[in-house]
C-alpha cells in the first residue's frame, strides 16, 4: 500500500520536475492577472466586492501570523493586538482625532484644511508596520524563555491588555485635552486613502480599495516566500524543531525569535491600518479576543507553516464570514420555517467547520511539505528505526577508505 503511494508520489515529483522552468512564473503571473481583473466582473459596490476585500485583508493577517506560529512555532494567541495597533496608527495619523495638531503630508485637498494629523495612507501603512514590529519585539521579550503553552498564555494576556487599553484609552490624557483612544465611541471620520492623480477612495466604488489590499497582499506574499527559503527562514524552522541543537549550531535565539515576532506583527499592523480606513472608524470593540482565534483558525485550516495554506485559509474563512453567511445563506433557516438568521449562529458554524477539518484533514487544506512528511513518513521512519535499534545492526558508518570527497 505504502509502496504504491510512494510510487505515486515519485511519479508526481517526476511530472513536476519535467515542467519547464517558466511554469511557476507563468502560473503566478496568470493568478495575479486574474486577481487584478476580478473586480470588473462584479458591480463596484456589491456585497461580493466587500466580502472579497475583507477576505484579502484577512489573508494578509493570516500570512503574518503564519510566520510566528507556522514558521517559528511560537503559539501567539494575542495577534489581535497588532490589528488594534495598526488600526490606531491610522486613527492617530489619519483623522482629526488629535485636534490640537495640524500636520498634513501628501493628503487630499479636503483633508489638508482639517485639524488633526493627516498623513498619506502609504506613510501610515509604513508607520503601522514599524509600530507593530516594535510592539512585536516587546511581546516577544518575556516569552523568550518560555515554550509552547506558556507562550500562548503570555501572548493572550498581551492581546487582552491592548484591548483593555483601547477601551479605557478615552480617559488617558495625552495633553491638550486629547486622549489616547476614543474607547467604544470610536475614532471616526478617518481619512480615506488618497493618491495624487487618483483622488480619494470612496465607499461607492470598492474597486480601488480592492486593488490597494491586493497590492498589500502581494507584498506580504513576496516577503513570506523570500523569507521561507532564506537563512532566516531555515533558522526559524531549526528553532522550532530543536532549540538546543539550533543554538549550538550558531543560531542566535533572541534575535531570531524576535525577528519572527516583529515581522509577523508588522503584517498584522498593515492589515489593521487598512481595516481602520475601510471600516471608516477605529472602535475598541473591534479588537476582541475571538479575533485572535479566528486568525489562528485560518492558519491552521490552511495548513500550519504553509504559505499557500495561510493564503487559502484566510480567503476561505474571510469569504465564509463576510460573504457566504451574511449575504448568501443568511435567510436559509427561514426557508425551512426556522425563525433565526445564519449570522446569529456563525460561531457555531465555524466551530463545526473546525471540528470537521480536524477530523478529516488535520494537516490543513494545503499542508506544508515538512509537516506533511512529518505526519506520514516520519512515523514510518521511526517505526523502522525501532526495528533496527539494537547496536551492531546499524548500517555501516564511514567504512575504511571511503569518505574522501
Amino acid at each position, binding site marked *: 500500500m505504502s509502496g504504491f503511494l510512494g510510487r505515486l508520489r515519485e511519479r508526481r515529483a517526476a511530472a513536476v520536475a519535467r515542467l519547464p522552468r517558466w511554469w511557476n512564473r507563468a502560473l503566478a503571473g496568470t493568478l495575479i492577472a486574474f486577481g487584478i481583473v476580478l473586480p470588473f466582473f462584479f458591480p463596484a459596490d456589491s456585497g461580493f466586492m466587500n466580502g472579497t476585500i475583507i477576505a484579502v485583508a484577512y489573508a494578509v493577517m493570516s500570512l503574518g501570523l503564519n510566520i510566528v506560529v507556522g514558521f517559528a512555532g511560537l503559539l501567539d494567541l494575542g495577534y489581535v493586538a497588532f490589528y488594534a495597533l495598526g488600526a490606531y496608527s491610522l486613527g492617530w495619523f489619519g483623522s482629526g482625532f488629535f485636534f490640537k495638531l495640524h500636520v498634513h503630508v501628501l493628503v487630499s485637498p479636503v483633508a489638508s484644511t482639517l485639524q488633526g494629523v493627516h498623513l498619506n495612507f502609504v506613510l501610515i501603512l509604513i508607520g503601522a508596520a514599524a509600530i507593530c514590529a516594535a510592539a512585536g519585539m516587546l511581546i516577544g521579550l518575556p516569552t523568550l524563555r518560555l515554550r509552547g503553552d506558556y507562550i500562548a498564555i503570555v501572548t493572550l494576556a498581551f492581546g487582552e491588555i491592548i484591548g483593555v487599553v483601547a477601551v479605557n484609552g478615552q480617559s488617558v490624557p495625552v495633553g491638550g485635552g486629547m486622549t489616547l483612544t476614543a474607547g467604544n465611541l470610536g475614532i471616526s471620520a478617518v481619512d480615506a486613502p488618497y493618491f495624487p492623480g487618483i483622488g480619494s477612495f470612496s465607499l461607492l466604488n470598492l474597486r480601488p480599495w480592492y486593488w490597494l489590499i491586493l497590492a498589500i497582499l502581494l507584498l506580504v506574499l513576496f516577503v513570506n516566500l523570500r523569507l521561507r527559503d532564506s537563512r*532566516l527562514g531555515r533558522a526559524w524552522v531549526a528553532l522550532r524543531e530543536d532549540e538546543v*541543537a539550533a543554538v549550538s*549550531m*550558531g543560531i542566535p535565539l533572541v534575535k531570531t525569535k524576535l525577528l519572527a515576532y516583529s515581522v509577523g506583527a508588522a503584517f498584522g499592523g498593515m492589515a489593521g491600518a487598512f481595516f481602520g480606513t475601510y471600516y471608516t472608524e477605529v472602535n475598541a470593540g473591534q479588537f476582541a479576543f475571538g479575533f485572535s482565534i479566528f486568525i489562528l483558525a485560518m492558519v491552521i485550516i490552511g495548513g500550519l507553516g504553509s504559505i499557500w495554506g495561510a493564503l487559502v485559509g484566510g480567503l476561505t474563512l474571510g469569504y465564509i464570514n463576510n460573504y457566504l453567511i451574511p449575504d448568501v445563506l443568511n435567510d436559509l433557516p427561514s426557508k425551512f420555517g426556522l425563525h433565526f438568521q445564519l449570522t446569529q449562529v456563525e460561531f457555531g458554524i465555524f466551530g463545526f467547520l473546525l471540528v470537521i477539518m480536524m477530523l478529516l484533514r488535520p494537516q490543513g487544506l494545503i499542508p506544508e511539505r515538512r509537516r506533511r512528511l512529518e505526519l506520514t513518513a516520519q512515523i514510518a521512519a521511526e517505526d523502522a528505526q525501532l526495528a533496527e535499534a539494537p547496536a551492531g545492526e546499524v548500517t*555501516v558508518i564511514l567504512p575504511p577508505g571511503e569518505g574522501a570527497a
Partner: protein
Amino acid sequence: MSAAGDPAPPAAPAPAVLRAERVTKEFGGLVAVEDVSVDLPEHSIVSLIGPNGAGKTTLFNMLTGLYRPTQGRIVLGDRDITRSRPDVITGYGVARTFQNIRLFGAMTAVENVMIGHHSRMRAGLFGSIFRPSWVRREERETQERARDLLAYVGLPSTVFDRLAAQLSYGDQRRVELARALAAEPSVLLLDEPTAGMNPRESAALTAFMRKLRDEKKLTILLIEHDMKVVMGVSERVTVLDHGKKIAEGEPTEVRTDPQVIEAYLGKQA
C-alpha cells in the same frame, strides 16, 4: 595562550586552544562537575572518559555555552568564553555533536548541514527579503558546501534531499558530523560518536577522526566509552568520576592508573 598558573601537564606539546580552568557546575545541591581542568592542545585528539553520570556531557555543555559554570573559567585561544552564548561560541569556532543525535527531523540532510553554516553567513532580514546578488551567491555556496561535506562524511548522494528523520541511524550520525563541520570549527567536540556501532564501524570512525584532524586542521575532544577507540585515537585522556577528575595523561599511563582501574575499567573486568 600559555598554560601559566595552571598545574600544566609536563608533556603538553602545543599551546591549548580550548581550556577549562577549574570549572564547577552545581544543579541545586547536586555537584555535577567539581573543580575540573582540561587542556586541549592544538591539533590533538583528547578523550574524556568515565562511568555514566561522571559529568562528561555536563562539561561539554559548559564548553559550548549551554551551561554557565558555577565556578571557574573557560578559555578559547586567548578569549574568555565562560559567559558567552552558545551561538557566539560556535561563531568563535567550537562545534559539537550530541550523544542522542539531535538533527532537525523535518529538514533535509542538506538543510541540516546548511544550518551548521549559519554563523558563517551574513544575510539578515532585509538581505533575505531583497536577495541581492551576494545573498544569492552566499546561499548557493552554502548549499554546495553542504553537499560536499555530506559526501566527505560518506553519506550516499541519493539521500541528500531526504528528511533527516527518514535517514537510518548511521546516516543520521554522518549528517550530524557534517553539520558540525559546516560551522568551520577549529575545535570539534564529539559526544559518544561510536554509540550504537559495531567494532568495524568504530574502527572506521577512529581512522576518520584522525583524517579530520589532519585535513580540516581540527582539535578534537571526544567523549567515549569504547576503550579501543580511546586508546587508539587519543593523545591524551582525561578521566572523570563523580564529577571529579581522577586521572589525566597519555592513554598508556591512564590505563595503568590504579584509581582509574578501580573507578572505571575495573568495573568492566
